[in-house]
Every structure is written in C-alpha cells, then in structure tokens.
C-alpha cells in the first residue's frame, strides 16, 4: 500500500487544509497587528528622548532573547494561572506573535527612517515643503521602499514560526498532519513522509512567492538606487 493514499483518504486533505487555514489565520492576524503596532512603535523609537529610546530597546531585547515557545507558554499557561482567564490557544498565539512581530517591525521601521540621510529632510524643507509634505512625498516613499522586502521576510518568519502553536494545543496544519499519521501508523507506515511532504508543499506555496517578491524588490532597489 502506498502512503500517498492516506492524503486522499476520507476528509484528510480537507483536514490538512483547514489546519493550514488556522496557520494562515493566526499568521495574518498577527502580521496585521504587528504592522500597525510596529509602525507606531517604530515612530516612537525614532524619538530623541533617551528614556523612550531605552524603554523601546529593552522591550525589543527582551522579546528577542526569549524563544517564541517560551512566550507561548508564558502567555497561554501563565496568564490563565495568574488571572484565571482562559485565553485559548489561538488567542494566546496571536498575542505572542503580535508582541514579537511588533517589536521586530518597530525595529525595521526605525531602521528604515534612520537610513534616510539628513539631507533628504533638509533639502525638502529648503524647497519650502511643509513637514507633512516632506513626509508624504519624500520620506515615507523612501522608507517604505526600504521596508517592504524586510517586512516580507519578517512575515515569512512569522508564518513558519506559527508551527509552534501546536504545542499549546492549537490544531494547525502540522498538528493535523501528526494526527493523520498517528491514525494510520499501522496500515500505512510510510504515510508520514507523504503527509510531511504535503505540509512542506503547503508552506512552500505560501512562503516561496513571498520570498521571491522580496528578492525581486531588493534587486530592483539596488538596481534603481
């Protein structure tokens, strides 16, 4: 018997796809919040106030130092224990990935603004542009161009890292895969390879176009600059 049959048995494919949908849903919501909060955070991080700068820096470092898995446990189990509030796996996941994504996004936004030479601001003002016009026509377009490839890379990293949420009981694509493999362990011992291949292919379908786009944009900018 071929393991590949397992993929098409019963509603297995549908289950995998709905697992994938959970992955995508957590990723999309987290990425969306991260974009918004990270942009705000990035704007705050460009502040010249040393206290504000230090607080942002500490936040970023704390988020980075702790593995995402630890964060997931802290939020999922810790919050429940402390407050008695049961957040549920998916909500916990979205919170953790947003905390992480916003921090990384903030750092990217900060970097994108700092990368713009001082003379771009001064030439804009010298030409009589108002501050708003300067940001709208000169600064934002340049910052965004520098930012897009990095944001795409961050998004693919976040999508891949969502696989961890199975460890706090969320049934995303990898978890579904394991369930299918376990259920067919005796009849189809080599099902695992096919299931994982299918999952690999699913991740690939999502992430590959993203990294291609990022690469193309980076290249275009290097050529056009």
């Amino acid at each position: 018997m071929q393991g590949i049959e397992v993929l098409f048995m019963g509603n297995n494919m549908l289950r995998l796809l709905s697992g994938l949908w959970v992955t995508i849903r957590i990723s999309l919501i987290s990425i969306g919040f991260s974009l918004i909060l990270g942009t705000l955070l990035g704007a705050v991080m460009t502040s010249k106030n040393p206290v504000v700068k230090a607080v942002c820096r500490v936040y970023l470092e704390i988020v980075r130092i702790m593995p995402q898995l630890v964060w997931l446990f802290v939020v999922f189990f810790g919050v429940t224990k402390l407050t008695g509030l049961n957040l549920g796996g998916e909500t916990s996941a979205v919170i953790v990935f947003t905390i992480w994504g916003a921090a990384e996004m903030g750092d990217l936004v900060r970097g994108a603004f700092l990368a713009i030479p001082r003379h771009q601001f001064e030439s804009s003002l010298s030409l009589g542009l108002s501050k708003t016009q300067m940001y709208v026509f000169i600064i934002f377009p340049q910052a965004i161009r520098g930012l897009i490839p990095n944001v795409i890379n961050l998004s693919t990293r976040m999508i891949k890292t969502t696989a961890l949420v199975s460890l706090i009981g969320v049934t995303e694509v990898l978890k579904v895969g394991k369930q299918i493999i376990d259920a067919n362990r005796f009849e189809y011992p080599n099902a695992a390879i096919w299931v994982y291949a299918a999952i690999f292919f699913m991740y690939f379908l999502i992430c590959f176009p993203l990294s291609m786009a990022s690469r193309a944009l980076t290249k275009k900018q290097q050529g056009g600059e």
Partner: protein
Amino acid sequence: MSEHIIDINNLVKHFGDNAVIDGISLSVSKGEVVVLIGPSGCGKSTLLRCLNGLEPIQGGTVTLHGEPVIHGDKSLYKVRQKIGMVFQSYDLFPHLTVLKNIMLSPIKVQKRDKAEVEAKARELLERVGLSDKADSYPSELSGGQKQRVAICRSLIMDPEIMLLDEITAALDPEMVHEVLNVVLDLAKNGTTMMIVTHEMAFAEAVADRVIFMDGGVIVEEGAPSEFFRNPKTERAQRFLKTFTYTK
C-alpha cells in the same frame, strides 16, 4: 546702495558651548555674488543654514527683504521658497526622476500649473545641458549631473537668492568644471548668490565680494582682486597660502 536681499545683523549661533558664529553682520544686495571662504569647521555651512532657518539661532537677526527668518516659525515655508539652497552632498530625491525632482516643489508648494512647470523644468535642464536626462533617476547620473539638477530644482522656484554650500567638494575633478560653469552662467545673468567654495580660482572669477571667516567672525572682506592679490590680515594670508602648492 541697491536693494538688499538678505540682511544678517550680529548673528550668534552656538552648538552647546561652541560659539560657531559669534556676531556676524553682513548684507547681500540684489544681483550680488558673495563668496564665503574660510578654514574647514569655521562655520560657513552653519551660516548658510541659519539663513533659511534650518538652524535655531541664539542672537541677532536674519531678514529676507526685511521679513525676519525665524527657525520653527510658520512663516519659514514662505521664506524658504525664496531661498534656493544646494548642498555638498547629492541630495536629489532618489525615488523620483530628474523631471519630477524639479517639478515637485513648484507644483506642491507654489501650486503652479503643471504644464507651465514642466516647460520651465525642461528649459532649465536644457540650460544646464541635461535635456536628455529628464526621465532618468538620480542613480543613473554622475555627481556633476546630479548637482546641475539640484541647481535646476532650486532655480525653478524663482528664488531671490541662491545659497551654494561647497557644491563641488564631493565631485571628481573632471566634473567640477561643468558645475562651476553653470554657476558662472547664473552669476552673469544676475542671480544673487552666496557661495561657499574651496575653488579659489572660481571664487575669484565669480565673486563680487569675498568674505573670509574664521573663529566665528568675519576676519576680512573685499573685492576679489584685492583680497586674493593683497590680503590684509595675517590669518587670510595664512589661509590662502594653504592653497598654493610649494615644494
């Protein structure tokens, strides 16, 4: 005395404890070309930056046609439209074509008619010998070409005065000429300018008046023939000597 464009009266500018400009008074008349020279770090750039309100000042006044230039004030947006400034570094907007670089501010700031602005932009590009570069991006231009575009971008605003801060200092030697020729051409056509430069031969050719700054003050000023042949102060003599190569 002809009409003054800019009046600087007892200007003082500090960076912390560092009095970079320590009481400078000077006026520039319509059509006049004033060249500002002095050792590196003596405050030439800072002086130009105070003139269009890029720097807050700690004392004295700057006026353009009698209107005060006040850092951080709303009136600055009006004032800056009348002062063209070109910096040493290439400061074209990298995400816009040459034509769009030039057209942005007359359209967005002065709200001028697009067709009129484009015609004027092309005319200016023609004048500096860059008609064929209208649709290029800054990255596709040489340093000398970029600076010529930057000059056009300021000129299209019809400024009362142009401030040029070492606009050839970052250029390869073979490109210096093409840029300086444009500036000489402007001078011939009566453009009022304040120019900071280390090109002494050019300074002598273009200036109506040379101002030698050091230690935050004007040490000496005069007609270029007088100043370069016959500097009166010891500091100016010493400064000019550094430009003559002797074995």
